[in-house]
């Protein structure tokens, strides 16, 4: 029974490969079915190459502002081919790394397109993409447990379907042949604003159109407003409460009709349009309907331990619903693996899933926003601390930023933390740990934060919530 596994993961993205490695660690016989990219979107066409691009943008930004630091930089410029080449190289390196880790953990990689034919049975059709070395060929496989980890793909709006040339998704935006002179971005979620920051730094004239009244719609209002002010100061144009109702394609540009909430209609012409209006789960062509797998709004319905309504069938990551974030997928992969192995799996608490956006300035958050905390009926204490009061931030030349903390006034429980500014994506984890450990304000106040670090703003924000910030 060479083709029989304890568990098969369909999809080798952050959910699938991490879950597979964890299952292998627990002594299970594990296989991963992949049709296109080992490691999935994240290392190949998502988080990692995007961060590589943004790093180039950040460094170029510093070079452009060399004078602020008493430095001289002349004849500066962007070699977009070089920027993309670096990004693609890093993507390849990370993808290879995933392949190596799977091999090291004796996880079989099965190459092709998977379809569930019956509970515990998968038929794998060969894929047009070249198989990596050592991958098993298409065929029929069986497993005691099957985990759907097929991820998600960009959502396409009717009439504004991406065409790879003028209307881009993140795929094209991650590997441009040239920098468009002007760029229209539909959607101001993480993907939208990250590309806005990147292309603005690369010299594009960038306009963001957001349907909702605030950019970064899942973030705290105040943090989003702060980020918006900074974007606009950089010259990014932002239209909120605005809808792209029509797009007409020209020879080498697009003209979009944009309706704003006040009823005004305007047309905007740009070289390229990036459609960043969210992603939808890859639930099609898997044979889910025939097995009666429950889905809801394009995602597989699961419980806290990642079980679907069909015994032996599990789902994790983007395909199992929001928040569609790599680290949430990884975590669910581990939960599923541990539940399958019969170990002690802890259920997912989505409130504890942090979010990081690598625009400039960065945005990071965990837990409830101020609005949601109030809606949930909490009586809250809110602490705010601006970067201007932090010596390290000022020394870095990053004196704009804000750390906001939200506590339950009754119990001192940390309900949420929301940060905008330099390095906040690396700092949020402090608050994530605090929330997971159920700290109250007392432990955070009593903790010693190292000086001089930007992280001192976290401490001060907590102090501020209790009316005792020092540097404010």
């Amino acid at each position, binding site marked *: 029974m060479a083709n029989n596994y304890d568990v098969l993961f369909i999809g080798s993205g952050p959910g699938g490969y991490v879950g597979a490695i964890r299952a292998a660690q627990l002594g299970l016989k594990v296989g991963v079915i992949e049709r296109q990219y080992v490691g999935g979107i994240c290392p190949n066409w998502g988080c990692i190459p995007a961060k590589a691009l943004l790093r180039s943008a950040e460094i170029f930004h510093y070079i452009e502002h060399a004078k602020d630091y008493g430095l001289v930089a002349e004849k500066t410029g962007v070699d977009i081919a070089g920027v993309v080449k670096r990004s693609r190289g890093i993507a390849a390196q990370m993808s290879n790394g995933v392949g190596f880790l799977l091999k090291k953990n004796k996880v079989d990689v099965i190459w092709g397109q998977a379809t569930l034919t019956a509970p515990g049975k998968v038929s794998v059709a060969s894929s047009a993409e070249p198989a990596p070395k050592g991958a098993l060929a298409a065929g029929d496989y069986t497993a005691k447990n099957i985990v759907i980890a097929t991820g998600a793909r960009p959502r396409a709006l009717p009439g504004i379907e991406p065409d790879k040339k003028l209307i881009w998704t993140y795929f094209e935006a991650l590997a441009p042949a040239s920098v468009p002179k002007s760029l229209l971005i539909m959607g101001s979620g993480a993907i939208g604003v990250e590309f806005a920051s990147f292309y603005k730094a690369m010299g594009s004239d960038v306009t963001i159109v957001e349907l909702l009244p605030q950019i970064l719609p899942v973030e705290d209002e105040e943090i989003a407003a702060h980020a918006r002010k900074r974007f606009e100061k950089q010259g990014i144009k932002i239209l909120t409460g605005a809808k792209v109702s029509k797009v007409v394609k020209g020879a080498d540009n697009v003209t979009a009709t944009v309706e704003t909430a006040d009823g005004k209609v305007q047309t905007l012409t740009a070289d390229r349009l990036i459609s960043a209006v969210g992603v939808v789960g890859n639930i099609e062509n898997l044979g889910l309907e025939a097995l009666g797998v429950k889905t809801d709004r394009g995602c597989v319905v699961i*419980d806290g331990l990642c079980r679907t309504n069909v015994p032996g069938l599990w789902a994790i990551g983007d395909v199992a619903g929001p928040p569609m974030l790599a680290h949430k997928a990884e975590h669910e992969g581990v939960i599923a693996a541990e539940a399958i192995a019969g170990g002690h799996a802890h*259920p997912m608490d989505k409130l504890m899933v942090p979010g990081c956006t690598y625009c400039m300035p960065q945005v990071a958050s965990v837990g409830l926003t101020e609005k949601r905390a109030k809606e949930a009926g909490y009586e809250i204490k809110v602490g705010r601390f601006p970067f201007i009061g932090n010596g390290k931030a000022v020394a870095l030349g990053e004196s704009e930023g804000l750390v906001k903390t939200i506590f339950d006034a*009754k119990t001192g*429980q940390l309900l949420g933390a929301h940060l905008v500014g330099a390095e906040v994506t690396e700092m949020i984890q402090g608050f994530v740990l605090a929330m997971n450990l*159920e700290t*109250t304000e007392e432990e955070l106040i009593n903790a010693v934060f190292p000086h001089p670090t930007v992280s001192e703003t976290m401490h001060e924000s907590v102090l501020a919530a209790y009316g005792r910030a020092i540097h404010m």
Partner: protein
Amino acid sequence: MSVEILMPALSPTMEKGNLAKWLKKEGDKVAPGDVIAEIETDKATMEVEAIDEGTLAKILVPEGTADVPVNQLIAVLATEGEDVKAVAAGSGAAPAKAEAAAEVPKAAEPATATPDVAPAPVAASGGYDHGNGKTPGGRVFASPLARRLAKEKGVELADVKGSGPHGRVVAADIAGATPGAAKPAAAAAAVPAPAARAPAPAPAPAPAAAAPSNAAVLELAKAYYEPGTYEEIPLDGMRRVIAQRMTEARQTVPTFYLTVDCDVDALLKLREELNKSAPEKDGKPGYKLSVNDFVIKAYALAFQQVPDANMVWGGDRYLKLKHSDIGVAVAIDGGKGLLTPIIRKAETKTLSAISNETRDLAIRARNKKLAPNEYQGGSSAISNLGMFGIKDFTAIINPPHATILAVGASEQRAVVKKGELAVATVMTVTISCDHRVMDGAMGAQLIGAFKRIIEKPMSMLV
């Protein structure tokens, strides 16, 4: 085990006060009843009495400190056989609400002095013991939030089974724990002397803390059942309110129960006669009295006979009501919900008026057509499960009511009358009383009055 002395609340609404004066010094022996400190607020000065015997090991908040939050650790008492120095040293490591202490420069001193005495045995063996979490056997692992919730609720951490990693007690575990373990809660260690009957600061039942754990509660529950073998039914608004209010009542109202058997043969006979002689109205009897109508009337009259029991809870005072406004629990949606419409001034109404009004209110309650003023407020409530054959039961008080009457079925039982076995129709009723509002004797008077009236039902007609 050492005893923590916390800043007492002089009233349920007090949040902080001034520590005016220490009447005992560190090292002084203390006996229960000794006045150890004086606390003042803008309204009053009160004495703090010791509850336990021991030696005042450490004063953590010096006298003259203003705005000390309620429940802050102000001193530690070493009990008999304990090393006073060790207790004093250990107390410094306790989380003496350092943020509050630090607001007052003087108060911060004891905390900063800790390292000097750190080698003392207690500090060395468990430097991070947090008072509440400490047991003779060692340390209880609990999250900071769980510790705080336990303290507020008066739950001994050592008695709580932890569901976190390695048995760590987490906030969700406290939500399900019952206060009042073997030892009195730390918060009760120091009670202001004249306020022996004043409650400890009524801890709000932290629905806020319980709220985020809903998802966790659900996932844990679901982990026990195969998907597909159950259906998930979200709470509707009414169920949510019932759950919240009943949980709050159960957790915050110190309730005692009094049960009496009522002989209702005379009542049943009177009822039959009255119903037979009901005047016709539109071709139908003008009224059809139920046993419950008599119960409502008798309960209303009982409150008039024992007016001091006709009170509701108002935090730092009572509201003594003039009329007997009696709520009648009505099951709606086939038992999926509950409303308690109120018969106002029931003591002034005739049985037939009560009967007709109850019927009208019940019908409209079932159709969810009641106006809020028809089910809000009231003196007390009646829950009657007699029609379901329930013999006797206890009901949960619906705050701010101080009482609720649980009425069982009227059934024939063997009773002893004048030394002889006899058959009587007996109805068992149990009254739940809020001990904050009344004591046992008052509750007994009330239920006694009810029994007298129900057993001599003619008195209801005059």
